[in-house]
């Protein structure tokens, strides 16, 4: 939007100036003004056509100036001194103007008009609309001096006065007539610029016209400026232009400051708003992750790195001895702690040797286990465990807050109500997506609008026939059944894989043949991960559950099932917007199933680790006893025993394991996304593009074609990714940073991929409504991902030798404390939800009320118009009678009421074709001012009855 605005501003500098003080109803006012001008032109039509035109131009110009001035004053807060000087000048000029009768006559009319317009402006600002005509007439009767006086009361008339000045100086060579003509031309151009937007011209013509007019005005306006008032005016104009330009530049600058705004706009213009909505969502997500990252980085990771005990000081901060050899290997670091055996190793090495090694990254601030349980660290006495806990809570709380707030805001925008009532008019007037700037997309949109029309007509017919509905229903049920089958199948597949890998892991590999062993080793390197190596190596079968196979199956299913759903949804024959929501819902279910399978398996793994931990605890005492015994035997003096921290045995630390799993999941997810992007989009596009020259059918239009951007899948990927971040962030503080990186990269990558290798969707549609749908899903995911996190924190005791809570976690794990918190959360969500619902309902009611009022007003106006028509007839009859009726107060009264109604009538000649929908506010002002009507003398009737009045003035 901003970009567009900027452009518009560029188009119509003056136009904007005119509207500077009121943003709403821009065009309307301009049109009204024009109309009024026309009316006034008619009213003074007995004067030569030329003069009328001139006056019109001047009036327009005045209006523009006035507005500009007002705006300027508003903006810059101009002082009154200038004003005063202007007034003086004006007075002198007024005297000058008395020189010739003819001029005076003209002038008076001009001023009248000026007044007129000024008052109209006032009316537009909500003060009064009615007294226009009345004042006008009064003006005609009052003396000239008083007029000038009232003039000086009013603001900003300098420029006009100056216009009538005899020209001096630079353009002195021109005759006054020529100058006048020039001025007229300039005014004409300005007027053109002002009303250009409403003209029914093609854009090209508008643009060329605008350029020409602007150049012309630019060239001659400055040249016209001479004399003192002129100079100030010119100065003002220049300043105004500068200011406008600055504002425009500033707007552009601001747009440029919004990250990726231009990219998104470009995509929007090519692909329609549904694709753009994904990128906007991505950007929003990026913002949230930025904050999460700031919290964890600033309050947890940096203090620990700076002020905590350094690496190698205590066991939990040291890489164990047996892992030291491989700790810095890239493969190890890459996998965040767990090394995958290389293929050569796998086939050559004996089983005992390809033990899993843990890398350097595991023993760093990136993971939970590194943190110390010291109460306060560093010279700041930074309370690390507390900070860690509060950051964990804070990230979740902040996320809730943001998501709910955004939802509430979106709900307000939605408005609700009966939008389906005017199906065809919506389609006619509102189906074009104005942001489309690409011909192909426009073609598609065009086609989709036509088809939607056809469909709507068919639908309308069928809703009357009402026979095919059973087939549709059956197909929809069938589709849902198929989708459910698919979901169940994929769930079972994952379950099967997880169980199988667990079986392998638990029973050891000896019982299986070479084939299965290798399969497992290749696909599940971490199954053989040995977490704790004690002397007997008896814990070998305790293995981590996750493995590449599970991950791979999960991501493959996550990739292919949505495609299947998409195909199935073809059965249902929904509108694409609804189809998108169904698709989203289905993929949501699929992903949720995957995620929860993952979590359940993770819980199993945690149980295993905890069992292991018990063994370690026992061994620890034995180890300590051995240590003490040994030293006591060696050395009789009780010297402090120093053991290098790398040699100290330690527990498995399930928290770090959980963190690692999440990190690995995120990374594999990201990789899958990017690889899919590369293969599915890029290589396909390359193949299609270059093979098309030597293929027997048209690849671009026909079978493989280019891919479309999959909005639903991408959005859900993003949402679930975020869910994993929320879940794992407590155990791996590095997760938000990682996610930030991922989002950043995918922003650029996906922008590029969309522009480079996707084609616009065949059915482009507006996706304004689905935004809150995304948010709702995000909220659900947030809730569902906090549940397991809270469960693990509350129910599972922390490891004894790693992490900030290794001393115990009593006050948090107390359910009495956690439950009220959860309850509070739910209550808050419920409260906000219900308030927003109430607001929505109120909105809808208000809408209905407005509609009802509008209709009532229509009726009222019709009645009034009828009445006015009658009275017009009466007035005509009255005109034939002697003219003394004007002095009659009754008649004036009557006429004024005629006038009131006649204000709608100028469009049609005799009140036959009445403009149907005057806005509510205008009719309200109409009624409000009836009271003050009594003493105002009646104005002339615009159409017919003004002639006698004119005559009267002349007399």
């Amino acid at each position, binding site marked *: 939007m901003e970009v567009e605005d900027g452009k518009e501003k560029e188009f119509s500098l003056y136009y904007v100036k005119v509207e500077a003080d009121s943003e709403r109803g821009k065009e309307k006012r301009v049109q009204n003004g024009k109309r009024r001008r026309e009316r006034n032109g008619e009213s003074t039509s007995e004067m030569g056509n030329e003069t009328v035109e001139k006056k019109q131009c001047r009036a327009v110009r005045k209006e523009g100036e006035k507005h500009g001035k007002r705006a300027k004053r508003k903006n810059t807060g101009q002082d009154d001194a200038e004003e005063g000087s202007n007034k003086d000048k004006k007075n002198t000029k007024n005297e000058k103007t008395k020189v010739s009768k003819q001029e005076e006559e003209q002038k008076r009319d001009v001023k009248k008009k000026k007044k007129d317009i000024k008052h109209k402006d006032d009316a537009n600002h909500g003060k009064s609309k009615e007294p226009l005509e009345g004042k006008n007439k009064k003006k005609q009767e009052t003396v000239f001096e008083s007029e000038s006086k009232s003039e000086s009361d009013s603001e900003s008339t300098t420029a006009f006065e100056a216009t009538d000045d005899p020209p001096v100086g630079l353009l002195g060579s021109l005759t006054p007539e020529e100058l006048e003509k020039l001025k007229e031309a300039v005014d004409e151009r300005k007027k053109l610029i002002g009303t250009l937007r409403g003209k029914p011209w093609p854009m090209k013509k508008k643009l060329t016209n605008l350029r020409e007019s602007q150049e012309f005005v630019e060239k001659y306006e400055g040249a016209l400026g001479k004399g003192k008032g002129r100079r100030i005016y010119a100065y003002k104009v220049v300043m105004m232009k500068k200011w406008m330009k600055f504002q425009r530049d500033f707007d552009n600058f601001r747009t440029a400051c919004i990250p990726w705004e231009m990219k998104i706009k470009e995509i929007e213009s090519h692909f329609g708003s549904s694709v753009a909505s994904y990128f906007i969502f991505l950007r929003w997500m990026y913002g949230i992750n930025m904050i999460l990252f700031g919290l964890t980085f600033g309050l947890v990771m940096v203090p620990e790195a700076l002020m905590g005990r350094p690496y190698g000081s205590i066991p939990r901060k040291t890489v164990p001895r047996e892992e030291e050899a491989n700790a810095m290997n890239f493969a190890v670091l890459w996998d965040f702690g767990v090394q995958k055996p290389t293929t050569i190793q796998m086939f050559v090495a004996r089983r005992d040797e390809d033990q899993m090694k843990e890398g350097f990254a595991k023993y760093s601030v990136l993971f939970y286990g590194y943190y110390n349980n010291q109460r306060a660290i560093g010279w700041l006495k930074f309370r690390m465990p507390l900070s860690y806990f509060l950051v964990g809570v804070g990230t979740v709380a902040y996320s809730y807050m943001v998501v709910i707030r955004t939802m509430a805001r979106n709900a307000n925008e939605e408005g609700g109500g009966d939008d389906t009532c005017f199906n065809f008019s919506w389609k006619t007037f509102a189906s074009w997506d104005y942001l489309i700037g690409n011909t192909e997309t426009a073609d598609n949109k065009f086609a989709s609008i036509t088809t939607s029309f056809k469909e709507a007509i068919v639908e309308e017919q069928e809703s009357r026939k009402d026979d095919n509905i059973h087939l549709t229903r059956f197909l929809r049920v069938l589709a849902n059944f198929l989708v459910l089958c698919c979901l169940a199948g994929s769930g079972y597949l994952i379950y099967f894989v997880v169980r199988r890998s667990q079986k392998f892991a638990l029973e050891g590999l000896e019982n299986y043949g070479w084939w299965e062993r290798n*399969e497992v080793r290749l696909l599940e390197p971490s199954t053989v991960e040995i977490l704790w190596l004690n002397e007997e190596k008896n814990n070998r079968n305790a293995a981590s559950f996750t493995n590449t196979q599970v991950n791979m199956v999960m991501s*493959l299913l996550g*990739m292919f099932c949505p495609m299947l759903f998409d195909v199935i949804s073809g059965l249902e024959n929904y509108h694409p917007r609804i189809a998108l929501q169904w698709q989203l819902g289905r993929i949501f279910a699929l992903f949720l199933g995957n995620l929860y399978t993952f979590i359940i398996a993770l819980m199993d793994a945690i149980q295993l680790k905890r069992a292991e931990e018990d063994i370690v605890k026992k061994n620890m005492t034995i180890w300590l006893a051995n240590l003490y015994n040994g030293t006591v035997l060696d050395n009789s003096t009780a010297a402090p025993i120093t053991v290098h921290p790398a040699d100290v045995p330690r527990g498995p630390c399930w928290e770090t394991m959980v963190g690692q799993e999440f990190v690995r999941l995120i990374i594999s997810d990201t990789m899958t996304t990017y690889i899919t992007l590369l293969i599915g989009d890029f290589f396909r596009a390359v193949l299609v593009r270059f093979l098309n020259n030597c293929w027997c*059918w*048209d690849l*671009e*239009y026909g079978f493989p074609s280019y891919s479309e951007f999959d909005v639903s899948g991408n959005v859900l990927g993003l949402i679930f990714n975020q869910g994993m971040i929320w879940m794992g962030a407590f155990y791996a503080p590095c997760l938000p940073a990682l996610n930030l990186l991922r989002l950043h990269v995918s922003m650029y990558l996906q922008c590029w991929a969309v522009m480079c290798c996707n084609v616009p969707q065949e059915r482009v549609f507006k996706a304004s409504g689905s935004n809150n749908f995304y948010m709702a899903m995000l909220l659900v995911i947030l809730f569902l991902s906090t549940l397991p996190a809270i469960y693990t924190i509350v129910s599972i005791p922390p490891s004894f030798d790693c992490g900030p809570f290794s001393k115990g976690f009593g006050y948090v794990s107390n359910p009495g404390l956690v439950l009220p918190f959860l309850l509070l959360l739910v209550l808050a969500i419920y409260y906000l939800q219900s308030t927003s619902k109430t607001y929505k309902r109120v909105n809808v009611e208000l809408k209905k009320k407005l509609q009802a009022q509008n209709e009532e007003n229509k009726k009222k106006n019709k009645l009034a118009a009828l009445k006015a028509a009658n009275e017009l007839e009466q007035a005509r009859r009255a005109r034939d009678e002697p003219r003394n009726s004007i002095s009659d107060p009754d008649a004036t009264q009557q006429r004024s009421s005629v006038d009131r109604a006649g204000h709608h009538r100028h469009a049609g000649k005799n009140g036959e074709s009445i403009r149907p929908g005057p806005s509510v506010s205008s009719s309200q002002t109409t009624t409000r001012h009836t009271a003050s009507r009594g003493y105002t003398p009646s104005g002339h009737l615009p159409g017919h009855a003004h002639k006698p009045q004119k005559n009267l003035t002349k007399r």
Partner: protein
Amino acid sequence: MVSPAIALAFLPLLLTLLIRYRYYFVLLYRAVLVRWIRDCLTGMSREERAYQYILTHATPGDSQSILDTFDQWCSKVEFISNIGPKKGKILDRLLVENCPLTVLELGTHCGYSTIRMARSLPIGARIYSVEMDERNAQVAEKIIRLAGFDDDMVELIIRPSDEVIPRLHEDFGVERLDFIFMDHWKRCYLPDLMLLEETGLIGEGTIILADNVIFPGAPNFLRYVRRSGIYELRIHRATLEYIRGIRDGMAELTYIGIK
């Protein structure tokens, strides 16, 4: 190496592809497999089989009956890529609207479109129908004669199109072509169009109708037409003949000349 679970995970992909491209599979089956099997079984070419069917089922001399029988055979028995009834209607309409006197048809195949065109042409009009394949041309000739159109109405030329076009003026005395229907090899659309331009047989108002520009498709042809600017292009969107789900279209070009 690949575990059954991972193989199973590819099942949805397979299903998706199967469902999404089912029409193409049907086409593959009908146009390639069935044809091959029948060829082996009967020892006749597809066109000859079609001719036999028409001979036994249609009324001789009644062009509508022959066309209907053709359609029936193509949709029920075997597949031949004729223009089909739906796109045929567009063709009929164009001919009736423009009343061309000299018509060039590239790609007679079985004569379906020739009969269709000859039916709706005004008296005195003449069709030059070009077919490269000898056997097809024989069948086509038989069918056309069966429909009751003689040599004056339909002139069958058995030669490749790129040889015929330059010699149209000399050999057949053609001064100007009013209507050209292209339904031969999709690759030949563009070179043939250029040849036609060179010979100067195309004048202002000549209509060129090219079938199957979307599937199998003639992208180069369309691109050239769009860029050249001497044609007014209109694409009639329809589906492939006798198979519902495959989108196809005919390109209608009107020569407007260089302006």
